[in-house]
């Protein structure tokens, strides 16, 4: 009897061990990818933040409303570019982002533009108007060049009046352990001082714009949108790797714990079987006397 129980336990230990091997491997892969992604985020961040801050400051001081990109419109249809991962098994990374996106898009006529295979799959079965951009579903293949291409598509959508606002929904990489879903408006470029969080008096003041503030802004809008997408994707990608590493670390730890409790069970059963055998032998010996 005890032998059969032992076999079961042994089999379970084996299966947990092989699962642990997989989670360990995934953890290592995520760690090395994370290191590279983190570097990319750190090098991109100065550009990303200065770009955003400068443009916001310009927009707050802009009085030129003739440009289609800087004039705010009635928000009839609002586009949300939802950037998630290409793969699962990253803890709550994808679900947290989708939950956040759903909350942000509530009460709006949202047009979802999913980026990342998970995002595409998720929104394919929901009640949102979605617009999948062919060739832009895999987040991992998005380099700088492709971000600018995508920016051109988005600005075109906006310019043609198909959408009245464009937002990016992505996961900000705060640290190795903490990643926060965020949303940022990128078009139109009209911000009030409050939205930007600009202190009173802090602006371009008497800066000279060559040739004019409206022209400068119109010229750098494609760069701005592309830069913002690149930044958001870098942040999201690093977040995904961070979330996956944490999840896989927890999974490996759990597996280890399970193995140790199973080995204890196995050893007990083995000990029990031996004890029983000894009792049987000595009992039989007694009976023969």
């Amino acid at each position, binding site marked *: 009897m005890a032998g059969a129980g032992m076999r079961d336990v042994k089999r379970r230990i084996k299966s947990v061990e092989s699962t642990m091997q997989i989670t360990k491997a995934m953890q290592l892969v995520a760690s090395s990818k994370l290191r590279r992604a983190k570097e990319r985020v750190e*090098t*991109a961040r*100065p*550009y*990303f933040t*200065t*770009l955003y801050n*400068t443009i916001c400051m*310009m927009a707050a001081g802009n009085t030129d409303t003739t440009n289609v990109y800087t004039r705010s419109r009635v928000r009839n249809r609002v586009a949300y570019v939802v950037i998630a991962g290409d793969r699962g098994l990253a803890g709550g990374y994808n679900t947290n982002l989708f939950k956040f996106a759903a909350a942000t898009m509530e009460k709006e006529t949202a047009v979802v533009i999913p980026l990342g295979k998970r995002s595409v799959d998720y929104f394919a079965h929901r009640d949102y108007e979605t617009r999948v951009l062919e060739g832009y579903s895999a987040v991992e293949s998005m380099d*700088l060049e492709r971000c*600018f291409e995508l920016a051109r598509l988005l600005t075109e959508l906006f310019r043609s009046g198909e959408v009245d606002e464009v937002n990016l929904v992505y996961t900000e990489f705060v640290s190795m352990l903490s990643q926060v879903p965020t949303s940022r408006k990128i078009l139109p470029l009209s911000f009030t001082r409050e939205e930007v969080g600009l202190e009173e008096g802090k602006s*371009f*003041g*008497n*800066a*000279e*714009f*060559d*040739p004019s*503030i409206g*022209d*400068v802004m119109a*010229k*750098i809008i*494609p*760069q701005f949108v*592309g*830069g913002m997408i*690149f*930044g958001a994707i870098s942040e999201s990608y690093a977040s995904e790797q961070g979330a996956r590493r944490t999840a896989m670390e927890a999974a490996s730890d759990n597996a280890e714990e399970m193995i140790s409790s199973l080995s204890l069970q196995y050893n007990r059963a083995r000990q029990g079987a031996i004890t029983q055998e000894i009792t049987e032998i000595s009992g039989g010996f007694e009976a023969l006397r």
Partner: protein
Amino acid sequence: MAALYRLEIVTPLGKKFDDMVDGCVFRTTEGDVGILAGHSPYVAAIEVGEIKVHTPDGKTRYAAAADGFAHVTGELVRILVSSCDWAEEIDPDKAREEREAARARVNEAKTPEERELAKHVFQKARIRRRVAKKADGYSKK
């Protein structure tokens, strides 16, 4: 000796330059603009073109830059561009190949938008090639 100011060149792939300089020249939508210390606050969009930096040791460095803007404040000049490569970082032969490939794409373009895009790429490649030839480490003026 002329007064110095701080120049920062930032790209999505990191900071390309952050040091004190004598002066710099960049290509804006309105033409080449040179900035010396004490310039009044100024903002302009940057086109595909060359950036020339005069370092305090009297040398001139060249870079091929594309699309962005320059923001001049009292003590700091910040140039934000989508790409920026120093002359010595560009391989002249490769730059020529890229330029020829870009030229071919312009000729093959079918729609006007495609043509526009290809022209932009060609322009970038042309500047890269031109800047690459000025390399040789620091060129003497």
